[in-house]
């Protein structure tokens, strides 16, 4: 369980998050949605201890993120940042293999190798495994970064806009993989999404943020309604129903 209690954040004097409290139970897919600048990335990076907590408390499986050792947390939660750049000249297999670092401190054993190959296969990277990451397309690189997060083998996956740069095929593919690990392996996925229909189709729960606050929170059928979406995104959009599922016509 991820427990976020009364968390506020400000940069210099600018407030960014206002007293957020949110509990995400273990297992399932939670989508975080909201307009640009709502504070989704800031909240996720606090959960993933990428920036220090200013006020409030966050714990994962009962371990407070600000006092638990980084090494322990890295075995529990994996984070994919929105704007990950791969600074180093690395091959795809090496990059994905870094996901095993929290477990083996860099010394790969047979289990690690098997997990790496499995992640490469799962994200269709086997053919690219020997390529340098800086020679890949944006979407291929994004898949490699997601594979690295998967490789970490943590119970919690925190993914900030992982669908960036992915084409329709791989975007759907990734969402299905996430659904699968949540259903079959009991993983907890927290994912920032801009495609509200992806959130509707694959998430168990949608949390909407705006202006540094959580302004709506519920199951997809409760969230994908014209009034709620207008509150969050600031314009009225039609919601159709196809096969009993709400589909948002946000592009019209």
């Amino acid at each position, binding site marked *: 369980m991820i427990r976020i209690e009364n968390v506020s954040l400000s940069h210099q004097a600018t407030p960014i998050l206002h007293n957020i409290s949110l509990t995400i139970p273990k297992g399932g897919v939670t989508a975080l949605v909201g307009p640009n600048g709502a504070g989704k990335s800031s909240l996720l990076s606090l959960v993933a201890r*990428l920036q220090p907590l200013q006020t409030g408390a966050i714990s994962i499986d009962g371990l407070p993120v600000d006092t638990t050792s980084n090494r*322990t947390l*890295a075995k529990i939660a994996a984070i994919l*940042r929105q704007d990950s750049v791969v600074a*180093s*000249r690395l091959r795809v297999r090496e990059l994905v293999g870094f996901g095993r*670092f929290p477990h083996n401190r*860099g010394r790969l054993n047979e289990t690690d190798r098997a997990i790496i190959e499995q992640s490469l296969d799962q994200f269709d990277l086997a053919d690219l495994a020997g390529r340098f990451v800086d020679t890949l397309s944006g979407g291929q690189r994004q898949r490699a970064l997601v594979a690295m997060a998967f490789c970490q083998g943590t119970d919690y996956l925190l993914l900030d806009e992982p669908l960036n740069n992915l084409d329709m095929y791989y975007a759907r593919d990734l969402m299905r993989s996430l659904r699968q690990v949540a259903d079959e392996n009991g993983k907890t996925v927290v994912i920032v999404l801009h495609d509200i229909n992806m959130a509707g189709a694959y998430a168990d729960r949608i949390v909407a943020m705006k202006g540094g606050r959580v302004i709506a929170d519920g199951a997809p059928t409760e969230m994908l309604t014209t009034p709620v979406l207008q509150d969050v995104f600031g314009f009225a959009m039609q919601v159709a129903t196809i096969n009993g599922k709400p589909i948002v016509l946000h592009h019209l």
Partner: protein
Amino acid sequence: MANNRIAILAALSVLSVIAFLTIGLRGNIGFVLELRAIKLVALLQVGVSIAVSTVIFQTVTGNRIVTPSIMGLDALYLFGQMALVFALGGLGYSALNPQIKFAGEVLVLMALACALLLPMLRSRLDMGLMLLAGVVFGVLFRSLHSLLARLIDPNEFAVVQGASFANFNAVRTDLLAFASVLTVAALILAWRARHVLDVVSLGSDTATGLGITWSRTVAGLLVLVSALVAVSTALVGPVAFFGLLVVALAERIVNTRRHAVLLPAAALTGIVILVGGQTLFQHWLGSSSTLGVVIEFFGGIAFLLLLLMRSRT
């Protein structure tokens, strides 16, 4: 492939060492060999220290154009050295055993480097800012160094002045014993940190996500770099572009940034250039004192090339 190339580099290093020791042996062979062996130990340390400290520093800063010397760490060392003479000169500091003084200087450099660089390394600076900061540090500490030098009376000034210019020919052999211990210890630690270095090269966010405690790890690595910079600067004086040249070459030879490969490759490349170059210059290419100039010349060209390549992409 990388392993073959390391084997070739190792073979070249051994050849350089043998050539350095044996070519043109004349007269009292035992005596000459002993002299050469002492100098060899110093050159090996300098080559390896500069190479390894440069690799680590580039990894920590995420920047392949900066080196400890471009960031002014050697100037900082000389400043620390001068500051110690200035502060403690009246207390008979200058008369102390040189190895003890050296130990003090190393500690001062470690403290200064952490105090100055850690705040900058909390997050990654872009290359332009980093280089600018380096130029400012370099100028600042060189000026402070000469300011202190002027304030100190001429006798004490002479104590440190000798060490302010790189000279591969005049090595401070009196520091060799302590320097060797320090170098070996630092190299062992660097080798043990090779996997951590790989993760650090991914940047602070990714490294933190993988369980690295960024500020503590970076502080430890800076202390390591400081020790190695202190060794090379104390033994031969400041060297501006040698590290850049060695690491750029090594990275091209092994074509990877993985530290298990790059660290030994850079160390061996440093040995080949320094010991091999010294042998060449001593026996065939005129005076051995020109080696420093030639290395800096090619290192400077490497710096400009890297800068051009970077600004084009």
